[in-house]
């Protein structure tokens, strides 16, 4: 069974495929508008110290996601 983890637990350079969003449709919509959807593969570009935002890259785009949002995006390690 592949482990499903929140984005903010991945380390720099790791890839993950988005499986689900823990949140309402508003949360999902917001992410979708930016291009982050179920099935998108993301790579962790940078992590900040303590509870800072995480920067992910997908499809030639880089997005910074705040810690509390990042922990609600679940990915399967790829």
């Amino acid at each position, binding site marked *: 069974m592949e482990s499903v983890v929140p984005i903010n637990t991945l380390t720099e350079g790791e890839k993950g495929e988005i499986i689900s969003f823990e949140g309402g449709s508003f949360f999902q919509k917001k992410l979708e508008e930016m291009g982050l959807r179920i099935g998108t593969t993301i790579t962790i570009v940078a992590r900040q110290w303590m509870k*800072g*935002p995480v*920067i992910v890259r997908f499809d030639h785009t880089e997005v*910074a996601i705040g810690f509390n*949002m990042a922990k609600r995006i679940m990915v399967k390690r790829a």
Partner: protein
Amino acid sequence: MSTKIILVGYPNVGKSAIFNRLTGMDVISSNYPGTTIDIARGFLNREGKRYELIDVPGFYSLESTTNKAEEIAVELIRSGDLILQVVNATNLERNLNLTLQLIQLRKPMLIVLNMFDETKQKGINIDVAKLEQILSLPVVPTCALTGEGIKELVTRMNEARVSQYRFEDAQRWNEIGKIIGQVQVIHPQHRSYMEKLQNASVRPVTGIPILLVILFLVFTLIGVIGEGLIQYLFDPFFDNYWKPLMTSFSEMLSSHSLLHDLLIGDLMDGEIDFGQSFGLLTTGLHVTFAAVLPYVVAFYTLLSILEDTGYLPRVAVMVDNLMHKVGLHGLSIIPMLLGFGCNVPGTMATRILETRKEKFIVATLIAITVPCMAMQAMLFGLLGAYGVKGVGIVFLTLFIVWLLLGMILKRTVPGRSPELFLEIPPYRRPYFGGLIKKTWMRVRWFLQEAVPFVLLGVLIVNLLYSLGVMQWISSKVSPLFTLLFGLPGEASGALIMGFLRKDLAVGMLIPLNLSFQQLVVASVMLSMFFPCIATFTVLLKELGVKDLLKLTGIMLLTVVITGSLLHVVLSLFTG
């Protein structure tokens, strides 16, 4: 009536660069009535036809109703004749999401496939003709940086048409997938040098040192450009042309008339002294043009470079942690940075913040703890002789107050602090023409807004002096001032002046011959006491009367406490 073209697109697609390429110098940024959103308008003339271009602030979706900017965009699009969507060619899939939404509006449309040059570098191959065919819209590849494709864009402007492309909205992402499949081929690439640099500048271990270096460079460059302009341009002008002119003018007016006092001010040893004469045409103009403006120009130049290279969002990410301690998130660094140039645009920039709580905290922190260029220039004037020590203590005090006040406000102001969710653009060489235009627009704005206030300030203070009001106030507060702050009562005059123009207030402190310690306390208090009247006006507009009164109360309290504490602390040190 000119054809109205609405420029639409995601943030970071180079929309502003395209806008700047298409328009002449008469670009105006104006407020959309009834809102806090600013729209840029410009004109394009071609073959006798005149087009009006409207640059809508970048947004992510036409469907969300939470964002005022997006509502405005939709209204503007409906009122326009033609939609020009600027698309980032390296992100075609994502951008098509907006394209499909726009197509449903059934307006004549044209796609600008910008940053096309970057697709080659990234191994992306787009069949433009096929894309045109599928979308039934003209698609023009461009590179705003070099200007490639702009001519073609202008030529094909009237080919814009309503798309015949039909699809089910619920299947939008599938449609996008289908289009991409037919139109785009990506060859995987090795990690490029640029990517490594981008990563390094945002990962804390390397990113923070890089940030410190860049801050140092920026600070130094601002000083160099500012001083250079003063030394080689403005001071020579004032000393060699303006002074003789004003001296003759002064001789024409009878030396103690009200007019002379207002326009020329006091003569020091029979001569005009730009620092102390305090006339509208002497100190008033000199301070604006030879002290503040050079630094404003320098500041805005550097800021535009930082913005256009794409570095600022990365700064926002790195400082996000720190910002959270004061109840904000990373993006609020931008209004605060702007505040260092001039508190007015800094305060206006709080519009980019999502919640009222954030807006209030940032506006308050800017008003109280962020010294604008004018204030900084004068700080250096007052304390420069003492070297880094003096200025250092002032900035350190301001920073500590920023931190403490921020932490207090975070816990006491009701509301939530939002999370950072921000696109980080790749590093790009800035488009030089855009930089110039941007800097020029900001400087021009500053001149139009600053000069009237300076003159107003000088006028009011001169009047207050003539009526004896200043002297009366000084005598009344003198005992309090000496007790709490260790300052003579006359310093109160400088504080009042500080409400009108900070830099002029400093001029009033010079003749008081204060000691080092007194200068430091006075400088800090001056910096924190009341934003200048221009900022005050903007705060009134942005926050409303109630919040402004709250801010004023917080400010008075903070100034008195800081002034007293600083006085005590410094006394302990200098014994």
